[in-house]
């Protein structure tokens, strides 16, 4: 699939995901309102809250993500090389220059976030900037800017938010369950209680798996389109080699792992579950593909 195909497919997937999540949230909301005996009014309120959370987070997601990773706006005088690399690549793509951030961390990693090429940001750790030469940094940043250009960032932002909102609401429900006790519930229908609890536990897991399913293969594509941009696949290949042999980033949490250029939890944690939850293909395979280009 070429880049244009990928952009179209990302936009399609975004719409399907939003529709899917609305359906998913409606069913989940309906079960909970049955439990509380609110009926359709409850469902309506639930969907309005869900909508508001999603809407607000969509327009603030980049700020949240950047502040969660402790990213600070990079000054041009302080990081001239990072600036010139990002500027050059943006010129090569014919897209606006994203906001540039730096994370004080000796680990080596980078990510891109935002809604579209006009509202995007890239961040790199100081460890990355110290350990890579210009061509390697160019390779990494070309990969990140490809995520921006391909609208991967928008898709990932929306998925993260939708999954997150479901997790928040189900968490809220489970807490209210614990603190209220069973005896004062109006609805004593045992089956509904069980279904509601099971739904509240399963919903965030399902949402998390949906999040993962959309994030894996795009890494190869971003590698390829990044290499097309720099015309030098070896840059990213050698950067990935350095990154995968380097101690990992400390600020990453499982919530934003999918956004980094390399799995921030390292290659060693690859038992069955981490494979299931893995957001990135193995670095070895990526390097092999880049060197074959």
């Amino acid at each position, binding site marked *: 699939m070429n880049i244009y195909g990928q952009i179209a497919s990302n936009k399609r997937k975004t719409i399907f995901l939003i529709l899917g999540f609305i359906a998913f949230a409606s069913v989940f909301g309906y079960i909970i309102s049955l439990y509380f005996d609110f009926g359709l009014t409850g469902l309506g309120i639930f969907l309005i809250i869900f909508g508001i959370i999603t809407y607000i987070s969509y327009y603030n997601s980049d700020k949240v993500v950047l502040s969660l990773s402790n990213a600070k706006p990079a000054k041009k005088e302080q990081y001239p090389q990072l600036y*010139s690399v990002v*500027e*050059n*690549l943006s*010129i*090569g*793509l*014919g897209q606006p220059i994203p906001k540039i951030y730096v994370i004080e961390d000796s680990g080596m990693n980078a990510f891109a976030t935002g809604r579209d090429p006009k509202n995007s940001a890239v961040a790199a750790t100081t460890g990355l900037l110290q350990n890579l030469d210009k061509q390697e940094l160019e390779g990494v940043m070309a990969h990140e800017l490809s995520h921006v250009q391909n609208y991967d960032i928008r898709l990932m932002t929306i998925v993260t938010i939708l999954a997150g909102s479901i997790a928040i609401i189900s968490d809220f429900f489970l807490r209210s369950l614990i603190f209220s006790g069973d005896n004062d519930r109006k609805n004593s229908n045992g089956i509904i209680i069980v279904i509601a609890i099971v739904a509240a536990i399963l919903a965030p897991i399902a949402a998390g798996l949906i999040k993962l399913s959309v994030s894996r293969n795009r890494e190869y594509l971003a590698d390829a389109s990044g290499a097309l*941009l720099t*015309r030098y696949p070896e840059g990213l290949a050698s950067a990935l080699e350095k990154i995968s042999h380097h101690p990992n980033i400390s600020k990453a949490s499982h919530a934003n792992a999918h956004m980094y250029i390399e799995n921030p939890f390292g290659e060693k944690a690859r038992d069955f579950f981490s494979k299931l939850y893995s957001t990135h293909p193995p670095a070895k395979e990526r390097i092999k593909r880049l060197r074959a280009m």
Partner: protein
Amino acid sequence: MEILIGIVVIALVLIAFIWLTYNQLVTLRERIKEAISSIDVQLKRRIDLIPNLIETVKGYAKHEKQVLENVTNARASLMGAKSPEQKAQANNMLTDTLKSLFAVAEAYPDLKASANFSKLQDELTDTEDKIAYSRQFYNSNVLSYNTKIKMFPTNIVAGQFNFKEEQFFEAEPAAKDPVKVSF
């Protein structure tokens, strides 16, 4: 009657096709214009950096008249260039003359040590990188436009409305004779 309906349907399909193709070609051509203007921005920046560079070099190496003159001439011809082809050619010439200038500068330790000189050198290198990337973007736009207007059936519409092939912005050939430096 049925024949008439048939003719109308065919005519409508044709009009729709011409309409869409025409608009698509206009979009592609506009993208090329946008891309060339982004090259122009970088060329302009390069042109603006040169007088400063020449002044700085003169301060330390005034005997290198020939080299300095070559740079000034190349700069003037880049400023006068109109078509992408002329611009590409003049820009390559400027690159060559700058190479000899920097090679000559090696012989003047004071010049090399000057902060101003190394800053200008960095800025010129950065501008060259940016020219390379904007050229890449321009050429990829030209490639998709040129391919489009040659493909059937778009070529018929392109021919009717006078969509002409655009020129690439050629980089200088990679293998070139090393710059000769005379001391």
